[in-house]
């Protein structure tokens, strides 16, 4: 019989998870709290803050902007990432490490730097900031994530499958479409979902480049200044967090399925 023993390390791990989840646990508590002040003690249960969300036209506008941006960004960055990830895993070319490193740079660069440099260029070109400029900025940010996820799908791929298809008379493009693409499809879906989540939640670039077309986080930021609006913000936050977690779980299921399909063991995590 195996006895479950709680080592100090396991207790630390539990406390650490509590620390990580503290904000997310508190969020719905305040969203359903029947009081305008975001503090304990709680005042009772209500769903009226969610009701308030329905009759806020500015919010609907922001939601529409966010969805347009997130969908476009997911598709753009996954397309760009698909080719780059394929190149990185299948081919050797000069300055490969340098080129890939440069493409992955937005992962570590402070977002403020990316945002102001884009803004300065746009201002200099005389372009107005809009939904389109946010799409451009978010795609830059999401591309490295798409590449990281898709590289995971491509690395496990058995190259002889593609060669077999070509030997059997398929063209290179045909082999890619008929053999490779179905195998990496779960990776593509995971990448689409992750890029969608990142774009939906991203604040800094959207804040700098939004002009008068706010996204959801930019709208949220504006509302944080009004204490009376905070419960509504909590309700909106709860919806956003729930959406992210659901999409994340779906993305993870697809990622695992992809690993299974290409016969790899699960090393866990997207990053």
């Amino acid at each position, binding site marked *: 019989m195996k006895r479950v023993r709680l080592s100090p390390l396991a207790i630390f*791990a539990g406390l650490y998870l509590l620390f990580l989840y503290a904000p997310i646990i508190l969020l719905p508590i305040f969203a359903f709290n029947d009081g305008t002040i975001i503090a304990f003690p709680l005042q009772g249960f209500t769903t009226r803050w969610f009701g308030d969300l329905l009759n806020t036209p500015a919010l609907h506008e922001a939601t529409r902007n966010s969805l347009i941006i997130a969908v476009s960004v997911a598709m753009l960055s996954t397309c760009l990432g698909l080719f780059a990830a394929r190149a990185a895993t299948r081919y050797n070319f000069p300055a490969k490490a340098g080129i890939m490193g440069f493409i992955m740079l*937005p992962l570590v660069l402070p977002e403020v730097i990316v945002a102001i440099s*884009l803004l300065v260029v746009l201002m200099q070109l005389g372009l107005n900031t809009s939904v389109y400029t946010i799409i451009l900025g978010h795609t*830059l940010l999401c591309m490295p994530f798409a590449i990281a996820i898709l590289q995971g799908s491509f690395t496990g791929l058995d190259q002889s499958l593609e060669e077999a298809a070509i030997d059997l008379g398929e063209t290179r493009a045909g082999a890619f479409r008929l053999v490779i693409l179905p195998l990496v499809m779960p990776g593509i879906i995971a990448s689409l979902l992750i890029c969608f989540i990142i774009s939906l939640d991203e604040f800094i670039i959207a804040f700098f480049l939004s002009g008068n077309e706010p996204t959801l986080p930019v709208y949220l930021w504006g509302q944080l200044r009004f204490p009376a609006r905070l419960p509504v913000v909590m309700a909106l936050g709860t919806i956003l967090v729930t959406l992210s977690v659901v999409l994340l779980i779906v993305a993870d299921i697809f990622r695992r399925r992809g690993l299974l399909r290409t016969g790899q063991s699960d090393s866990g995590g997207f990053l």
Partner: protein
Amino acid sequence: MPQGLSKEARQGLIMVSPALIYALLLLAVPLLTIIMFSFWTQNFLTINRTFTLENYTEALTDPLYRALMLRSLRISAWVTTITVILAFPIAYFISFNVRPEKKALWLFLITIPFWTSYLIRIFLWRVILAYDGPVNGTLIGLGVIEEPLSFILYNATAVVITLAHAFAPFAILPIFVSLEKIDRSLLEAARDLGEATIMTFLRVTLPLAMPGVLAAVLIVFIPTVGDYVTPRLVGGSGGTMIANMIYVQIFDLSNRPMGATLAVVAMMAVTITLAWAILHIRFWVHLSDGVGGGVRGFVLAAAAFVIEISVLRWVLLNGDPYFGPAGTMGVMAAIMVGGAIAIAVLLPKGRWGI
């Protein structure tokens, strides 16, 4: 097509080119543009394109900019230290104590909070740390304190706590990866040869995990220096960082060249600090090895660290009358960069790939 490239190389370059061109247009060009802007000046709405170092002189000598830059670096250093120290046991726990089939689930659990709205998470830290928030409530309830703690919100401490939360997964994942790579038979061998568990950890596990720890340091330190939201929401006036000043310059004062200069200075400060730290770790390890490691080696390395920091601190605080305001920064940069270059040239690449 360039001559002499193999078919494979050409195909690879064609495949990577869309992403590369995108990154060049939207990252390289804008970064070069702000470097260019940093040498210009702006008067109301007209940009004066004469080359000048005025902005840099102002950015490096104005006490306000200097204080903000140093505070940003200090906060980031604290965040990095705390995040990595807290992350290591978790990565160790998942790698060594969790059953293999459960590892993916644990990693997933740890990354979930990272994928949820950044803004909301930070705002909730303001609620958690508030005067009448749950932290104070619990501590009073437990009888640990009598009055609510007021030093945990609207200052640098709050920024450090909040950022340590936001960047946790970035530190856990690289450390986990390097721990996973450790050949478990090495640990068995150490124990079979009579090494105690603690010594096995210190002399086998920890050194082998160092590449992951260093990667975690880089991944946490670089983005936190430029964080904007956290100082705005929980920092108060004592927790303002350089990114907030960049925003003010560009939007409120519409002084784009100054904003660009501060951004360039921030990037340079981060690069110099990291290069300094990494090369000095090589130096300290070398010093420690020179006297045979152990406690003596540690004391010697720590002494070298304290001496250099004290010299830099003295120059920063008392340098102005001797070297002039810009000169002080020059002397500091000379000490840091000079020392780092000397180490890079004189000492061979040591352990941990640095």
